[in-house]
């Protein structure tokens, strides 16, 4: 019963966060100083009367209530509204790209976690922390995603998955190394090592279970980081995914598309919070 109440509370909070994210993003867009400006207004081919008409039309359709109702109606219809740039339902633009982005993120996350876990297990088990392990991670963290993607493109080596994996694994390594190091030097593990229990048994039987909750929290953080890195990676490598769509929408002021992508991302981030030991909380409720 308590567990059911905990699940219900979490669900209500998640729903509230997503709804607030929709309303907040819409308000943010509407209150932005240039929301009502249109590229055609500074085009010399249009006369003053046309420009005035464009401004008036933008002001009429740009009220906050109009924007919010259009957004909600679009989501209720299931098409997310109509793209200002392409004049087609937003869902038609988003659905084919979801698969591309999902695949890219999944491959990037799997590769990143494999890299981070293997390297951090090796580095944390050493008696003294070595600069050899720390330096590459520090260097990777100091390179902006866009720069890393551009350099990979110029070198003709690696692709979006590798860039995503390198970025994520460097971040994950930093936290995993500290967490695992603490776990390795716990008194009961020191005794187990002294007794000669095999390393793989130590890892799977003691080390990994003891850091499970931190690893779960880190996994959800990885998803957030991957989503943030999505835009530069997809734009620079010309991957037709959600990040590229959002960037294109931002450049062309296609706000229905931009808002829909943002809401999907908000939903993904909120659901990723599930990984951060919520099931554990529910079980203990």
């Amino acid at each position, binding site marked *: 019963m308590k567990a059911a109440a905990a699940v219900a509370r979490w669900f209500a909070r998640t729903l509230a966060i997503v709804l607030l994210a929709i309303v907040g993003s819409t308000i943010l867009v509407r209150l932005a100083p240039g929301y009502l400006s249109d590229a055609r207004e500074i085009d010399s081919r249009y006369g003053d009367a046309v420009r005035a008409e464009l401004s008036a039309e933008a002001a009429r359709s740009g009220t906050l209530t109009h924007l919010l109702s259009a957004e909600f109606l679009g989501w209720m219809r299931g098409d997310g509204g109509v793209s200002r740039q392409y004049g087609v339902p937003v869902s038609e633009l988003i659905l084919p790209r979801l698969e591309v982005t999902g695949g890219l993120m999944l491959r990037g996350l799997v590769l990143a976690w494999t890299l981070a876990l293997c390297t951090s297990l090796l580095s944390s088990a050493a008696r003294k922390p070595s600069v050899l392990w720390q330096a590459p991670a520090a260097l990777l963290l100091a390179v*902006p995603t866009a720069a890393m993607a551009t350099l990979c493109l110029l070198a003709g080596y690696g692709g979006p998955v590798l860039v995503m994996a390198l970025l994520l694994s460097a971040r994950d390594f930093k936290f995993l190394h500290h967490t695992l190091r603490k776990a390795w030097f716990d008194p009961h593990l020191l005794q187990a090592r002294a007794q000669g229990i095999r390393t793989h048994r130590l890892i799977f039987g003691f080390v990994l279970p003891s850091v499970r909750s931190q690893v779960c929290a880190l996994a959800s953080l990885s998803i957030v980081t991957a989503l943030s890195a999505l835009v530069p990676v997809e734009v620079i490598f010309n991957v037709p995914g959600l990040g590229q769509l959002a960037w294109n929408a931002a450049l062309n002021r296609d706000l229905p598309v931009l808002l829909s992508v943002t809401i999907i991302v908000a939903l993904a*981030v909120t659901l990723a919070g599930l990984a951060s030991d919520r099931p554990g909380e529910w079980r203990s409720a």
Partner: protein
Amino acid sequence: MRANLAAKSLLGVLVLAAVIVVSRPGASYSHQDRESPLAAASKQHPAGTDALGRDRLVRVSAALLLSLAGAVAAAALTTAAAGGVGVLAAFGPESMGWIAMLICDVFLALPWMFLLMIVRSALPLSASPMNSAVVTFLVLAALGWPACARAVNKGAHNLKSSDWMLHARAAGLRRRQLVRTAVPNLLPVLLPQFLISIPAFVIAEANLGAIGLGIGEPLPSWGGMLLELDNSPMLFETRWVYFPIALLIIVLLLLEAIAMEA
């Protein structure tokens, strides 16, 4: 400690060098030398020129100063906002704390890059380069506080339940007095948050600029200069196009080293 001091000193030297380069007589980040576009390193242009004939060393120095100044200001704003919200949520009424943390969750549910793109794309088409720079860093400050506020809130809650705070409450200190006593004790939480935010904001500005949504030209920025790398013919002309990215990585490594020690 020694690494921290070395990083601070090196960063100080870089900033000083950038100030000297920018304030040299005749140095201008927007002046176009039409006679020598894509020039190699020379006495006149120690790091060569870009495709428009602008001195690369002056532009990189100006970008370093602008980026650092903007990131430090944004980090100060975000830390102050996070401190205010975190303390208010911990010491205020329970409902206020709940609402504040819910707002934090809403912000945290929206990755920076998407929010930045929303706001940046809705800027007026006629926004001046300086306005675009100010707005970029203001938006970074406005979006960066929730994670920091959560950390401050946790620290404030720990303080609130500490023995000396319980003693102070039992002795009849008012809420305002409690807050005034608690805030200086939160400095060990606030300072690292401030220092961590600086490289994060520099990276965010560079990423945003590299996809064409950052600071407007002709104002130099890291992101804008990363766009130079897209120009393939230029890469064969001169290796100096890699200079901005190399310096950016050095600056970020120094900032990370300073933040790590805190």
